């Protein structure tokens, strides 16, 4: 009975292994094929390792998308961590009348479908003169990242024992010094979680970039990959290579720090 059950479990496991994992193997193999080879046999192994696709993808304009994405994602993450941790410190440690109300207001942002603000933000970014620029993306991205970030960090700050700060307060340290010298350094796990979640969110974000960016030289990776798909639609291996190259940083990071990435993605998603 147990053996039968075990066999059944392995069969299910392998079935999902193929379902979830095969697309990635398919992507890897296809990236080494020529279009001709692909059309002859979609899933055969590549006969020779052709790096033609990689040469086609790794052109200056594609690397530009990469650079844009790196700039937008890292700046957004840095800003979010800075301002969200400050606000979270106030919510976790200071007593003031509107504490709960303000906190709820921030966190309620997680329940609002961000897309409903697409048109007003498009108009606003235009009026601010930030249309078609990377900073124009950072503003909305930061704003949409705040609810989750504040939620995670406030929760974390509340768990940090108070003794250290109380001693520092006694010694006459200001809240700013306590925040910077004690709280912030103690919060690396929460910062990592928030950072990873927001990095992946901005790295993969599509709809706001689609609306707020126009020039090819400002496009982020998701827009760039889509553009490549539009231009090279017949060259399926080329498109697949673009997908692979664009996803590679995240995949590499995942294999290096799997626990952190899974933890970051899931706790970011769980919210409330």
């Amino acid at each position, binding site marked *: 009975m147990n053996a039968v059950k075990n066999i059944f479990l392995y069969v299910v496991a392998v079935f999902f292994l193929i379902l979830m994992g095969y697309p990635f193997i398919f992507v890897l193999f296809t990236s080494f094929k020529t279009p001709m080879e692909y059309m002859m046999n979609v899933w055969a192994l590549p006969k020779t390792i052709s790096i033609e696709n990689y040469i086609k993808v790794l052109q200056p304009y594609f690397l530009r998308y990469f650079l844009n994405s790196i700039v937008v994602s890292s700046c957004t993450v840095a800003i979010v961590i800075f301002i969200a941790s400050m606000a979270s410190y106030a919510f976790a440690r200071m007593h003031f009348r509107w504490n709960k109300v303000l906190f709820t207001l921030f966190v309620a942002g997680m329940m*609002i479908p961000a897309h409903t603000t697409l048109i007003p933000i498009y108009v606003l970014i235009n009026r601010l003169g930030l249309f078609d620029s990377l900073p124009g993306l950072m503003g909305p991205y930061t704003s949409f990242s*705040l609810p989750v970030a504040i939620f995670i960090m406030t929760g974390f700050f509340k768990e940090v024992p108070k003794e250290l700060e109380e001693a520092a307060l006694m010694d006459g340290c200001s809240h700013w010094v306590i925040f910077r010298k004690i709280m912030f350094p103690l919060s690396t796990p929460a910062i990592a979680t928030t950072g990873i979640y927001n990095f992946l969110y901005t790295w993969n974000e599509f*709809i706001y970039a689609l*609306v707020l960016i126009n020039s090819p030289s400002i496009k982020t990776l998701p827009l760039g990959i889509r553009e490549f798909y539009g231009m090279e639609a017949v060259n399926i291996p080329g498109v697949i290579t673009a997908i692979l190259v664009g996803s590679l940083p995240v995949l590499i990071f995942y294999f290096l720090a799997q626990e952190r990435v899974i933890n970051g993605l*899931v706790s970011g998603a769980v919210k409330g």
Partner: protein
Amino acid sequence: MNTSSMKRVNKLNIAGTVFLFIFPAALVYCLFNVFGVAMTFYYSTLKWTGIGTSMQYIGLLNFLKLVKDPMLWHSLKNNLILVIVSISVQLPLGLMLALLLTSKIKGTKFLRTIYFMPMLLSTVATGILWSLFYDPNFGLLNFFLEHIGLASLKSGWLGSEKTAMTAVLITICWQYTPMYMILMKAGLTNIPEELYESARIDGATGNKAFWHITLPLLSDTIKISAVLSLVGSLKYFDLTYVMTGGGPNGATELMATYMYKKGFVEFNMGYGSAIAAFMFLVALTITSTVQYITRRRSF
């Protein structure tokens, strides 16, 4: 200075500190999130192309037009299908995979590594990849069907009104099931082993233990997952936009893609905002109803 004025100074000081700590986040949040939602409702009362200044206040005319717009109800229906499929497919599948990962078979760590991978691709990448799988001429799916002797089933999956929605739904499930798997797994590891042991002594194993211990104790996790999936499904945009653009003939149109089309393709920002406001109200109503119902049940 007497004590009361000192207290006041102190209070002002604290208020100042609170203000300095919260101000940057509040400023950004108000500028985009709060202001954004408010302006969505304001713009929905305008006849406006979005470019130029010729705004015309038309009151609730956009909404009157909207409730008579068959495409709106059609896209709402598609959103609701997405909600139902997400909850009834992704959650059970996620739970099943989580049970698999906590079972005694070998290699669960490796399995988890691979099972989670779809979550790492951007929606654009996933959308393009699956469009290529569904490709009528050189797609993996048709190729596979031909190989197992079912060539007659070959189809242009995304191009046909009958199959497009299903094809998109399958892709969405592929993309998001891993997240529910991890959530469920976290919920499962929180159930104390002793409960199963004492149940075993009472003769409750296997199925019985699952229905009487696992499921009830997972109810919080399941609730969170359901709300998550609900919020996500109601605002869904990227994947349908990339894979079908809402087509063919509106078969995969969602509220968000319809709003995009009205606002940014037809430059009818007033009407687009009305759709966005409608989306906001639908999401708010459904989410708070679900929250209310599940809260009452868990007490």
